[in-house]
Structures are given as structure tokens and as C-alpha cells.
């Protein structure tokens, strides 16, 4: 019998249909990947299976687990099923654990809720489960608190909570989206291993096609509450039927057309020389020496006019700190930063004249706007840098209109508020705000990371086009190597505060020299390679788990040495 079988599942709140006629099945030991952009209903499907849809929703159809309809179960019965027969892992490991309880207690709780065991036995199971997910003694005693763990380690704890009772079905909703690539690879390998060991079914929900392509047996693509296409992974991707899936596939490996003008002028737009940024740490004891954490350690780089430079590295490597130093948001302890040959002042911050050559676009387009200001006011904000020279009246409005038009919006949008726009449009507004004072350099700090793939492709196109036309330089900061590769001319790889490798983007991706660069590239999921490897090597290999396989077989998720 099919482990999980969803038939004609519908979900609506009031008149709004959230899910329509969902039909899905998962066998024991099978991995089903659900792909969709935001609003596609993929998370709602997961919550519906768990019986955890928010209040006010009503559902129809059937969700059969081993033949029993979960939608007909009472809340008390569902409490007995959740955590025992079905486990769930969520996206955000940083907040998914109770900060006031030890990890041991939180894993043991799963056992104690469902089994009449004593604390001692529950703790024993918790210990075994944490060992299974790779958090072994003595480094990870049961008494650790969540804040003492990294994001990847916390996600392992969340997984341990979900699998402590060896559920028959595990649902993982974007389990690796908030993690670094190398951590992502480890977590995916862990999930795959657990599926193989326990023979449980796994529903892996993600927006990232490359992530599921490597490990899912079957794929369902969702859009606006419906499944548009479903089938075995390789067959589905090789022969996409629905226009939406085809668009999604194209967008996820989208390469914006770039036609950079000849680099002119010998003075670089940005010259960073030996910059050091130290943070003071609390003293160990009352009279202990002051301690420092060196977040940026002697970094030098330069960006020519019209050049797009990528800065990649994992979280905590210092890339955002470097960006903040370049933006003069933070003082530097050593080294110098110059824009168009003019040095930025050190601790006192940069002058208005210097700042107006520099703009920034951040990751979260909504969080970086004041929601009570009109778009006109938001976009015109940087005008204060021009002082008395700021345009007034009709000229001001004309400049705003032009900036909005430039990023693909219309002048009428100036009178609206930010909440009236979608995520992609908000990021366009952020870019318009960055453009309005005609800077030489825009720092893009994870500027497309929060966007859906199709929107991301559009924004990347826009950025490429603006750079070409206006001779703009970008410092493109991202943890996503794939995106950096599509839009940058040169790339810098940062690790622990230092630039470990720098060079032409094409060269570095084709032939990485530093071990860290290789590691990053190897861990970055790559859709095309994943598919090719699965076609070639049957039965499908687990690219993460088995080190021997990693060495010898062409691994689906590796874009390692020798490929471009």
C-alpha cells in the first residue's frame, strides 16, 4: 500500500482557494520533491498533512496515511500521529528550537510525548538519535543549549526531534534554504541516509530545482495551489511539458546577457587596501586582557569602472562586514578605502561627496524600506547627499520618474506604498533608490537571494543591463555561487576574513586553485550535472554520503575541478 496518498486535497479560507485538487503519493523509502515558488502552496500542503493548517482554513479531499484518512482524525488522534508516524523539519533552524531548553530535552520530549517511557529511557533514545544525526559526544552533550550551536547543527537537532521515533514519513520544508552550501550538502546527505536506513518516505519541499534534482526520486511542481506537473525526477526534467515548469527550469539556470563596455580610465572606482576590521570581544574575566575578533583581515581589492565583481563566502566569513566597511557604516582599524581615487575618511565616516558615489541594495527589500513612506519619498531619500544641489520640484519628480522607469516600473508607482508591491518589484524600488544619485558603484549584498527563481532571473537581467548601459560597477556579495557566476566578471572568494582566491569568474569556476574554493564549488547544487550523473549512474548514487563515491563517480551535485 502507498505510504501517503493525497487525493483531491483542497484548502480554502473564505472564498480564497489555497490548494486545488492536489494528488500526490509517497512510497516508503521514496523521496518526493515538491518544487514551487512563494505562494505556490507547497508549505500549506505540508501543514495540511500534519493537520497544522492555521485556524480558519477548511479542507476537502483525502490525505491517506497507510490507508487512514488524516482529515477525518480528531485533534487528539492527530497529536498521536504527529511526531510519531510523521515527523517534520522546518526551514529556519535558528528559531525552530526553544532557546530555554537543552537539545537533549527537546529531542527526548518527542519520545516522552508518545511513549510511556521514563526520562532515563527517553534520554537514551535522544542520545542515540543525536548520534545518528552526527551530533556525537563529547562535543554535543544532551545539556547543550541551542544558542551554543551553529545553524547546521541546530538543523540536525531539529531533524533528530523529527526522527527520534523513526516515523514512517518525514516532511522537510526548505530544510537547507537558510544554510551555507557546504552545510546544505551535509544536511541533504543526512536526510538521504536516514531515508535509506529507516525506509521512511521523505517529502522534500524546496524552491531550488538543483537541490531536489540530486536526491529526489519523484518531483511535483506546484504553482498557485495546483500541481502543474509530476513524475520521476530525471524523466520529468528532461521532458518538461507545462510552460510554467519550462520557464522555471530556464530561469534557474538563467544567464543574463552581458555586453560590458570597454573598461576605461586607470583609476579604479573602488580601491580597498589592506583593510582590517576588529570587533572587541567581552573580557574573559574582570581583569583579563581585552580580546578582539578579526572579522576582516587585511583585505585588498579593486573594481574598475563598469566591472562587476563578486564576493563569495559562507556566513561569518566577513563579507558583509567588508561591505559595511566599504559603505563607511563601520570604522576600519587599518588599511584604506578609496572611491574614484579619493580616500574615504576613516573613523569619522565618509563625506557626503564620497557617499554619493556609492549605493547599496540589501537582501530584504521590505525590511529596508520605511513602510509609512511613499515610494517617491523612499526613492528620493539619497538626494540629501547632494545637499543644496538636490533637485527640487519638477526636476526632482522627473529624476524619480526616470529612476523608476529605468528599473521597469512606471512613474505612477511613485505615489504608492511599499506593501502594494511584490517582492521582485520591491527589489526594483531598492535598485531605483540606489540609482537615483547616479553612483559609480553599487554594493549588492545578497540582493537577489530572497527572490523566487523566475523573479531573480528578471532582476539579474535588469542589473546586467543597467551595468552595461550606465557603466555601473557592482560589488556583488552572495553565498550563491551560481548567481555570482552568471553576473560577475571577476570573483573573490573569502574565508575567515581573508580573500583566499581571486580572478576571472570563468577561470575560477573552471579551475579553482584554493581548496576552499573547490569545496564551495563541490557543494553547490548544479541542476544539469545532477541530472547528467543520475542518467549515467544507475542506480543513483548518493553524492554526499559515501566518500569513495564522491572521489570516483561523477557526483551529481559537484561542479568540481575540470568543469566550466
Amino acid at each position, binding site marked *: 500500500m502507498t505510504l501517503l496518498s493525497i487525493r483531491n486535497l483542497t484548502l480554502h479560507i473564505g472564498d480564497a482557494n489555497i490548494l486545488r485538487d492536489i494528488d500526490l503519493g509517497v512510497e516508503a523509502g521514496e523521496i518526493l520533491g515538491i518544487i514551487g515558488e512563494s505562494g505556490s502552496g507547497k508549505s500549506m500542503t505540508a501543514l495540511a498533512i500534519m493537520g497544522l493548517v492555521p485556524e480558519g482554513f477548511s479542507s476537502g479531499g483525502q490525505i491517506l496515511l497507510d490507508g487512514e484518512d488524516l482529515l477525518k482524525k480528531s485533534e487528539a488522534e492527530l*497529536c498521536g500521529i504527529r*511526531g510519531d508516524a510523521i*515527523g*517534520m523539519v522546518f526551514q529556519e533552524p535558528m528559531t*525552530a528550537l526553544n532557546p*530555554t531548553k537543552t537539545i537533549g530535552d527537546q529531542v527526548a*520530549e518527542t519520545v516522552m510525548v508518545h511513549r510511556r517511557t521514563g526520562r532515563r529511557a527517553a*534520554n537514551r533514545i535522544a542520545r542515540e538519535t543525536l548520534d545518528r544525526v552526527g551530533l556525537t559526544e563529547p562535543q554535543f*552533550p544532551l545539556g*547543550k543549549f541551542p544558542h551554543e550551536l551553529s545553524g547546521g547543527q541546530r538543523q540536525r537537532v531539529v531533524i533528530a526531534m523529527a526522527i527520534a521515533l523513526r516515523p514512517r514519513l518525514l516532511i522537510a520544508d526548505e530544510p537547507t534554504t537558510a544554510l551555507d552550501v557546504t552545510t546544505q550538502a551535509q544536511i541533504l546527505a543526512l536526510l538521504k541516509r536516514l531515508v535509506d536506513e529507516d525506509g521512511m518516505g521523505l517529502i522534500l519541499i524546496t524552491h531550488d530545482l538543483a537541490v531536489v534534482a540530486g536526491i529526489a526520486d519523484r518531483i511535483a511542481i506546484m504553482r498557485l495551489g495546483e500541481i502543474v506537473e509530476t513524475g520521476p525526477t530525471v524523466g520529468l526534467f528532461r521532458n518538461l511539458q507545462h510552460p510554467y515548469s519550462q520557464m522555471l527550469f530556464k530561469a534557474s539556470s538563467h544567464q543574463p546577457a552581458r555586453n560590458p563596455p570597454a573598461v576605461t580610465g586607470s583609476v579604479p572606482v573602488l580601491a580597498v587596501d589592506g583593510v582590517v576590521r576588529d570587533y572587541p570581544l567581552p573580557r574573559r574575566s574582570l581583569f583579563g586582557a581585552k580580546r578582539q575578533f578579526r572579522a576582516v583581515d587585511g583585505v585588498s581589492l579593486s573594481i574598475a569602472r563598469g566591472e562587476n565583481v563578486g564576493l563569495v563566502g559562507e556566513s561569518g566569513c566577513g563579507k558583509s562586514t567588508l561591505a559595511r566597511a566599504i559603505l563607511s557604516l563601520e570604522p576600519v582599524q587599518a588599511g584604506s578605502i578609496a572611491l574614484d581615487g579619493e580616500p574615504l575618511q576613516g573613523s569619522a565616516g565618509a563625506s557626503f561627496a564620497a557617499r554619493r558615489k556609492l549605493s547599496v541594495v540589501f537582501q530584504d527589500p521590505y525590511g529596508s524600506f520605511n513602510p509609512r513612506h511613499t515610494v517617491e519619498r523612499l526613492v528620493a531619500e539619497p538626494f540629501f547627499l547632494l545637499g543644496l544641489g538636490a533637485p527640487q520640484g519638477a526636476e526632482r519628480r522627473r529624476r524619480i520618474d526616470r529612476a523608476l522607469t529605468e528599473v521597469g516600473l512606471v512613474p505612477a508607482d511613485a505615489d504608492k506604498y511599499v506593501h502594494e508591491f511584490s517582492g521582485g518589484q520591491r527589489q526594483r524600488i531598492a535598485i531605483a533608490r540606489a540609482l537615483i544619485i547616479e553612483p559609480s558603484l553599487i554594493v549588492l549584498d545578497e540582493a537577489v537571494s530572497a527572490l523566487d527563481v523566475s523573479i531573480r532571473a528578471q532582476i539579474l537581467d535588469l542589473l546586467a543591463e543597467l551595468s552595461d548601459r550606465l557603466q555601473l560597477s557592482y560589488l556583488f556579495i552572495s553565498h550563491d555561487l551560481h548567481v555570482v557566476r552568471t553576473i560577475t566578471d571577476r570573483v573573490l572568494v573569502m574565508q575567515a576574513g581573508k580573500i583566499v582566491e581571486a580572478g576571472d569568474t570563468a577561470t575560477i569556476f573552471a579551475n579553482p586553485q584554493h581548496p576552499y574554493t573547490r569545496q564551495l564549488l563541490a557543494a553547490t547544487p548544479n541542476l544539469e550535472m545532477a541530472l547528467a550523473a543520475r542518467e549515467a549512474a544507475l542506480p543513483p548514487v548518493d553524492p554526499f554520503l559515501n566518500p569513495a563515491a564522491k572521489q570516483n563517480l561523477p557526483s551529481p551535485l559537484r561542479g568540481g575541478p575540470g568543469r566550466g
Partner: protein
Amino acid sequence: MHKNIFVHCFPASTPADRNAPTHQAHGTVEPIATLELRGSLPHTPVPPFPLAARASTLHNRSAMPAYILSRAVSLCLSLVAASLVVFVLLEIVPGDPAALMLGLNATPEAAGALRELLGLNGPVHERYLNWVFGMLRGDFGISYAYKVPVSELFADRIWVSIPLAIYALTLSTLIAFPVGIIAASRRNSATDVAIMGTTQLGVAVPNFWFAMLLVLLFAVTLRWFSAGGFPGWDQGLFVGMKALTLPAIALALPQASILARVMRSALLDTLDEDYIRSARAKGLTRRQALWRHALRNALIPVLTIIGLQFSFLLAGAIIIENVFFLPGLGNLIFKAIAARDLIVVKSGVMILVVAVILVTFLVDVAYAIVDPRLRTSTR
């Protein structure tokens, strides 16, 4: 007038005197006792694995003393700063205590001699140090108005005010916790709306009016309690507590209304957290998730309010003290201000400040017990 002084002195100041603490000094011991309790809390891991258990306890123990030490250092600094502020403020206040004590017909010579006797003539820093070290020895000087040692005046009142504050706070907490939890767990239900309406009323209505209603009902009509006065603790614990019951209720109701509202909103915030969803995914019922995961995390804002309320109850009980004819600290200080009995004001304010700072310290320690993240950082 009295209000101004309290409002001004309390938050801004922070005390310097470790002596009201002859008994308060035990205050420093208390947190450690509380700490030991922690070992028996249900959620601390029982040692199934010797190593795990040891490592975890080691971790908790090693960070906690450092945190307590850092809070204790800031407590001492606050006390010194507060004593300075109180001293300087009362130096500035016009009026010559000696002239006041001797009355209108006193000769300047007599006033001068009395000032000398009272130690009012020395240099400022000397008088400050005399005052501080005097308090440390338990010597608060002689009241200008009553001509008795100030320590005697305080000794009587403190044993009314502090038990009353603790009584009222206990009542307030006992009422607020269940009420707030019920309201939060039934958000937007009729119960919730009724509770919110009632607490709104409780916040709005002045506590002396409550007090008069209580007197009317329980003292005048039902004759269960006396309408006021305090017979003293030597009459027995029960008699003392009984006399304090109506005032404590009158004080507690508005405080409980505020606290219940804080409890509700803090709980609603934590119930929206991701880890509550995680707990539900583990199979916990809504109620279990609330009790086991949300409650402890919601305690931080609640503890903050409890700390503030204790301070308020200690000094701000003056109106209720008047309604019930209780010989409390607030009353004493108010009268001392009216009589320009500055030495009583100075030391009385200082005693209140010491109490408030000690409570703040205890709240800080409670924070760290609730939230392990605070134990590691010294801020």
C-alpha cells in the same frame, strides 16, 4: 510634592548603602539558594549519562557565577551612585533643620550650637561619609521632628511595608498568571474578551477606591476584617496577616490587571514563535506546547513588570496606608517631608532605594535562570 521626590529618586538613583541590609545582606545569599533549586526543576536533564550530565551542569555552573558577579558589581556601583544623588538632592533643599527644631523664637547662637551637635557644620564630603558609614552601622541619626533615633522609626514601619508589598505582589502574581494564561490560550474567545475588559477596568480604577469598597463590604457589612490599623506582629502571624489582607488586595488588583495583560501579550508573542510550531509537529497538544515551551519564554517581560511592581508597592502604598491607617514607610517619609525632617527623608529614601536595587538584582538573576543565553554573556 511627595510624588515628585519618589519619582525622581527612584529610577535615577541607585543606592549606596549596604547597611539597611543587615538583614538585606542575606539578599545576596538568596539567589544562590534559588540556583540550587534549579537542579530540581523538571526540565534540567537528569543524569542518564554521567558525562552528558556533568558537562551540562559544568556549563551552567561555570557561566552563572560570572553573571551573578557582574550583576553584583553593578549593584554596588548603583548603590554608591544612588547614595550620592540622594545626599546631594537633600543638601540643595532649602531650610535649616536646627532652626526648625528650635522653633521661631530660637536665638541664632542656640541654632548654631544645635547644628554643631547634629553634625551639620562639617565639610560636605565628611558629612556624606558620616551619613553612609552611620547607616552601615545601623545609626541613622536622630529625627529632627520626633527626637528619637531614626532607626527606631524605620524598624516599626519596615515590618509593615515590606510584608505588605510582598503580600500584595504574591496576590497579584497568583491572580495574574492564571488569568493571563487563560486569556492567551483562548485568544479572541468570549473568555478572553471578558478578561481583557475586566483588566482594563482594573487598570483604570484607582486602588484607593477599591480599598474603600473592600472596607465597605468586608469590614462594615460583613465584619470579617477590621477597617484599618495594624496590631503588630507580636499578636501572632495570623492576626498580622489578617490586618494586611484588605490593603494587600486593594494594592494587588490594579497590579494584577497590568500583570495579566503583560502575561497575555507575552504569551501570545511566544505562541507565534517557530519553536511552538516545532513542538506541535512533535505531537504536543496546544496546551502542552503552551505550558512546556511558551510559558518560560514569556516570563522575561513578566519578570520585568514584577520587579517594577515591587518597587512601586513598597513606596507607592502610601495612599492605601492612609486609607487603612497603617504605619508604613511611605507614610513616614511623607510626614517627614512635610515636617522638614530631612534626616528621616534622606535615610528613608535610601532604604527604599536599597530595596529596589536588590529587587532589580534578583530580577536579573531570575532572567538568567529563565534564559540560558543570558548566563554566558556579561553584557
